[in-house]
């Protein structure tokens, strides 16, 4: 076992990530064996649709968790972004491209709001994000007068944005998502922002006493998260077109589960974008499998709940051992 872990290729890819990949493959095999007609492209494409928006949420929250914070507003903010931009599109005749921009803007605004309160006012992230979760839901309902919003279908002239997900059977979204994941990974590992975000997540006071403006960098993590949440909204509507006000919280847990399963520590300071990506695919496949096996969505809630607890507990145990 130790020998495998010390192998340079395994070290480079990360032992945990290799295990996660195996889990992903095993799950796919299991569902294919048990589920009727599970194997094949349609199910994979359907799971991918779920993985895109969830993936962007997860990438976003990875930055926040890296600082040692948490964001429970990502799901509802994603819905809020999709509803406001969709309403602008339908009711005010805003062009599609601009609507997509509005979606990102709304996400970024919520990210800035959360980040400012956490970094500059020192309000606990848990409280801030719980509150902005409600604010996001409320704002979306008020803005849309509690109506659900439907984005244009692919057949219509304005439906081009749905190509972001797939063209024919080609999963465009997969390519875009991976590209963003690589960018995120570069930000986290190769730029000043990433260095300081991870460092302050590990030991905020030591970073401050190195003469670094930690508030600025901590807020930036939330802003990056917000922008990615806005992009998640685009991929949500591109996959499903219809959004209802008042929902979105169920995705918080799933996004956080994907993130912590991938090896990002809830205590901050350690984050892996690669791990997050695989974690997200596991969650997406799980939800597809559960539907295929004719279980209700409730089982998925139970399972993701358990995943979060197990993943975080594993992290706690790992850290205790190190100390």
């Amino acid at each position: 076992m130790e020998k495998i872990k010390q192998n340079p290729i395994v070290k480079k890819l990360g032992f945990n990530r290799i295990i996660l990949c195996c889990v992903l493959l095993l799950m796919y095999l299991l569902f294919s064996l048990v589920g009727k007609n599970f194997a094949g492209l349609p199910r994979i494409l359907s799971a991918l649709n779920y993985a895109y928006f969830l993936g962007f949420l997860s990438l976003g929250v990875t930055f926040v968790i890296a600082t040692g914070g948490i964001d429970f507003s990502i799901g509802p903010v994603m819905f809020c972004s999709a509803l406001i931009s969709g309403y602008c599109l339908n009711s005010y005749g805003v062009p599609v491209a601009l609507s997509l921009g509005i979606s990102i803007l709304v996400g970024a605004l919520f990210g800035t709001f959360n980040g400012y309160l956490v970094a500059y006012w020192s309000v606990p992230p848990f409280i801030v994000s719980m509150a902005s979760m409600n604010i996001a839901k409320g704002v979306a309902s008020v803005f849309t007068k509690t109506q659900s919003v439907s984005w244009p279908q692919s057949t219509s002239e304005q439906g081009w944005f749905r190509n972001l997900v797939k063209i024919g059977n080609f999963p465009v979204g997969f390519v875009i998502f991976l590209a963003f994941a690589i960018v995120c990974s570069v930000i986290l590992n190769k730029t000043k922002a990433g260095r300081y975000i991870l460092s302050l997540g590990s030991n905020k006071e030591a970073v401050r006493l190195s003469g670094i403006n930690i508030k600025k960098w901590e807020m930036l993590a939330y802003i990056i998260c917000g922008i990615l949440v806005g992009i998640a909204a685009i991929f949500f509507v591109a996959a499903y077109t219809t959004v209802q006000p008042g929902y979105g919280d169920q995705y918080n847990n799933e996004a956080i589960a994907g993130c912590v399963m991938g090896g990002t520590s809830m205590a901050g300071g350690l984050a892996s974008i690669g791990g997050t990506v695989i974690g997200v695919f596991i969650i997406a496949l799980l939800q597809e499998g559960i539907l295929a096996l004719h279980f209700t969505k409730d089982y998925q809630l139970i399972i993701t709940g358990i995943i979060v607890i197990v993943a975080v507990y594993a992290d706690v145990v790992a850290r205790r051992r190190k100390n």
Partner: protein
Amino acid sequence: MGEVILTMKEIDKSFPGVHALDHVSFEVRKGEVHALMGENGAGKSTLMKVLTGIYKKDSGTISYEGKEVEFHNTREAQDAGIVIVHQELNMLRHLTVAQNIFIGREFKKGFAIDDKKMNEEAKKLFDKLHIDIDPTETMSNLTVGKQQMCEIAKAISHKAKVIIFDEPSAALTETEIEELFKIIKDLRKQELGIVYISHRMDEIKVITDRVTVMRDGTYVGTLITEKCTKDDIINMMVGRVIYEDPKQHSMVAPGAPVVLKVEHLNAGKMVQDVSFELHRGEILGFSGLMGAGRTETARAIFGADPIESGDIYVNGKKVIINSPEDAVKCGIGYLSEDRKRYGIVVQKTVAENSTMAALEKYMKGLFINKKEEKKVTEEYVKSLATKTPSVEQLVVNLSGGNQQKVVIAKWLVRDCEILIFDEPTRGIDVGAKNEIYKLMNKLAEEGKSIIMISSEMTEILRMSDRIVVMCEGKKTGEVSIEEASQEAIMNMATREIG
């Protein structure tokens, strides 16, 4: 003074690498106030922790009321009647006075707590001690002095026969101290045995009957307070042989410019009107006892804590420092006494920690130039002789001395000209200590200016070119190394207040 109630004989206690108590003996009689004195790290607290069962002794005996005893925790000691009143009060701020006093042994009426009975009992206690406190008052509304009196009342309610006061006056005002002394005298009359730990000479003279002095984990001697002078006590506290050669004379070039000037600095209770100058190439020692305000002064200069008033000049120019960011821009680096919390990011590598304060220099556009980062870190690993398998090693895996070197590298990479070393060798073994000393001397020779805060007298006398002494937030003296002596420094560090 009555008969002996508590005797500790030949108590021995070692921690890994430290012989904390070396066959120490100590006794307390009924109706006496017995002072326990010594420098920081002399072993006073350890001795009291052994007594109350927080630490297990390696050898020696404790007899209490004529019987040999061994307590396994404070609860057992408390039940037997030995209670510590701590310097930091252990009170639940949101509960009432009575609720605090009877916590863990509340009076009950059925399932409910009987607050009325608790208030009555508390009142009786206070009356007995002639203390005027309302038992129904919320704890957080009381002054620190009153809170301490509640703590004493709590001790009495445990039927205490021996009470240990651990620096009780540190946070009190003059009038509160007077009240405290009245109560202590009262307790003495009631035939309790009292241990009084304090650094304040004048208090020792006023309130205590005997003084026991400890030094470096050993018992030095016991004096009758009435028959001794302050100098007698100080001589016992510091009378050690200095093994390492103290510096004979200052290494600073005559006429070296002033690089840092601090004038009338105020920051809270622990930094009051502190002024001093630091010259280029100088090692300025900051001496004093625990809680003298040296770390607080350093943190205020570094912008880690807010300054209330005062001026700071760097290279003759007045600077405004509101945050560590500002201080670092002025070329000031601070090496904390608590490296793990304030110095290093343990989950990061040696290279990442080394460039933490100067990352701008190693950027290539938007990206960190990891090659350059590695190169510069390797240079410093070599010049500071840091022992690490590679610069990609996580600092958590390094020894204390090598972690300290990583922090030094961090400030050198940033080109800091003024370095504040706060207890630079705390928790570092002897060999590594000497290396750090050599390094500091080398830095000073190269023209860096160093403030060294240290609680170790030998370290102060060995390293400093000049010594500033602080006591209770105030600067109480300044001596050149030529004039410095242990006695002179200790005298300033324990100066009478008021």
